[in-house]
């Protein structure tokens, strides 16, 4: 690790020892899980590079941007509109929430039975180990689930630049009005914060930029319909995870380059696993870096993941924002329309999600569905039960998994997932 980075982390007030330990574990886990995969596309080299530099080069770039006067906005959710952030001349990044960290300190602020994702976000703050959070000029929280909503009240005592956005819970005209007024409020907050007015021109540019990276991921998803699968679920998940960190234009270019290669593979009928490998759709809670636990177990149990019905996956990127508007009003309406379609489990009822799972299972020719619920995540774990019943009735095998970031249940999980794969094979 270069001295330059150490100085940078020191200036960001990170706890260097804890951070070193984190990077050590991250590097080892990445090596064990990712670098041991067979038949990886060459285009994944870029993502390997991003992962090795995730707390290095990317942070350096963000600090350069800051020097130029650009603001860095951190977020924990796909409801925070990146288009507005870009229009205001700022950069949006996803904040660390995919690993257990400083758990003891966290449990002095949050109940033990809080989901791993929320605990993790606190852990990285309390343990001073997330350079993104420390580099962020503004952190945007959002009222999704009760856990997050209430946790932001406590997070406010830890970060001095927290902005909380309210969100609707029903897809009614009133719900849409709430989202619209919250997006307008956020727009004004951004303008005040950056000093840069959001104009039709820069908002349109923001929309085009974000749509471009979504389109690149759509292209990647559609290539995963092929059998044999041209890319592993782990690698596709990684691309979806890097979506939240990377420079948008570079990300788009890299995903498209990867897709060019995958198209070639499909022409040659080459894949990461044989044609007979059971294909699995993963559905449920988001998996933030470095949470690769479930896909790692699935793909070392003789199956391949062909889609992620998740915030870090299609739920987050499925919808594009309509680009045709010219006035600010039209573009803001388009933005509200786009985000209001997200089928997050905080909405009630949430029939769209069931329909999307069905569509995805069909499109990606999934043999079975694994529902990934984070323990104590009520919205998703509650939805999982009726979903299981519906899909089993439709003869789509469905395995409901509830877990967290720890490794204590890996043995049992592996048995359950292997048995599920056996069931799909019979």
């Amino acid at each position: 690790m270069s001295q330059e980075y150490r100085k940078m982390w020191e200036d960001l007030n990170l706890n260097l020892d804890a951070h070193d330990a984190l990077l050590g574990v991250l590097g080892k886990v990445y090596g064990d899980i990712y670098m041991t995969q067979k038949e990886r596309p060459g285009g994944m080299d870029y993502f390997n590079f991003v992962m090795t530099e995730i707390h290095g080069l990317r942070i350096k770039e963000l600090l350069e941007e800051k020097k130029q006067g650009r603001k860095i906005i951190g977020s924990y959710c796909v409801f925070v509109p990146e288009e507005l952030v870009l229009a205001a001349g700022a950069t949006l990044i996803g904040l660390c929430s995919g690993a257990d960290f400083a758990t003891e300190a966290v449990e002095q602020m949050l109940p033990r039975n809080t989901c791993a994702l929320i605990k993790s976000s606190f852990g990285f703050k309390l343990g001073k180990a997330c350079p993104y959070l420390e580099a962020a000029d503004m952190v945007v929280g959002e009222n999704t689930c009760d856990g997050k909503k209430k946790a932001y009240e406590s997070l406010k005592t830890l970060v001095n630049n927290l902005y909380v956005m309210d969100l609707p819970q029903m897809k009614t005209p009133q719900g849409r009005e709430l989202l619209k007024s919250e997006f307008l409020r956020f727009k004004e907050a951004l303008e005040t914060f950056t000093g840069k007015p959001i104009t039709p021109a820069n908002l349109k540019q923001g929309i085009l930029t974000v749509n471009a990276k979504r389109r690149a991921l759509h292209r990647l998803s559609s290539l995963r319909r092929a059998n044999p699968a041209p890319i592993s679920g782990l690698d596709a998940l990684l691309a979806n995870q890097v979506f939240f960190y990377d420079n948008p234009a570079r990300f788009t270019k890299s995903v498209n380059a990867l897709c060019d290669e995958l198209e070639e593979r499909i022409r040659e009928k080459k894949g990461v696993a044989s044609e007979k490998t059971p294909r699995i759709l993963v559905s449920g809670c988001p998996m933030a870096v470095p949470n690769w636990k479930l896909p790692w177990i699935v793909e070392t149990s003789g199956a391949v993941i062909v889609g992620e019905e998740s915030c870090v996956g299609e739920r987050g990127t499925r919808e594009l924002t309509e680009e045709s508007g010219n006035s600010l009003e039209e573009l803001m309406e388009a933005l509200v329309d786009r985000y209001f379609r997200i089928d997050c489990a905080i909405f009630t009822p949430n029939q769209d999600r069931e329909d999307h799972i069905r569509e995805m299972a069909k499109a990606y020719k999934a043999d079975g569905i694994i529902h990934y619920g984070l323990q104590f995540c009520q919205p998703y774990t509650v939805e999982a039960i009726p979903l299981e019943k519906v899909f089993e009735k439709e003869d789509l095998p469905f395995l409901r998994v509830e877990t967290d970031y720890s490794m204590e249940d890996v043995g049992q999980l592996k048995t359950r997932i292997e048995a599920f794969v056996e069931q799909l094979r019979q």
Partner: protein
Amino acid sequence: MRCAGIDIGSRSMEVVVLEEGEVAAFRQAETGSAPLEQAASLLEGLSWDRLLATGYGRELAAHAFSCSTITEIKAYARGARELYPSALTVLDIGGQDCKVISLRENGRVKKFEMNDRCAAGTGKFLEIMAATLGFDIENFGERALAGRDVLKINSMCTVFAESEVVSLISRGESPGDIARALHTSVVLRAVSMLRRVGFSGKLFFAGGVARNRCMKHLLEIHLQEEVAVPEHPQRVGAYGAALLAREEP
């Protein structure tokens, strides 16, 4: 052809060797802290054309004896099908987990449930409770059979249940009645798991805990139907693995 199955569980391991479909050898040992050495000595002197490993130690066995693996779910489902062809549901309570498998008419796995991460309601739970009450695990079931249905254990967590037991003892309750209540709590948990897979009758009960007569008795009471327990409940996994080894392409 000689086909063997080895089931390395958390508490015990079993080997079954089949010759022309008949059990030619059956061996059993405690898993202990050196399962690989134990498995090697268990297999010593046995010969086979095909070997298939199952249970928690399956990966360990796969490396050491260069064989394939299957999960306990598949092994128990196969073993149950052979021993009780009309079985529609399998309950396997072993040393550290509890599994419920629902079968299709043709014996294929339709759905299964398994406890996630703790050993609540398994053999380990009964073992610890027997020790707390000063009973030998081998006759814990008999003591419970003689007990009355007058107490209730509320907690499924081994640690909490143990403190419940301690307070019942200090209240002067009879150890037999406490044993009965503990068995009932394990049975109720298994019954709720059975209902989750859509229990449709014809239950085959296996695993080490199936040797406990009180468990079978209480299951029959709560399910209101007869429960089939094989002669050797602990060897169903190894037996199923051996059968599957024979059927491998």
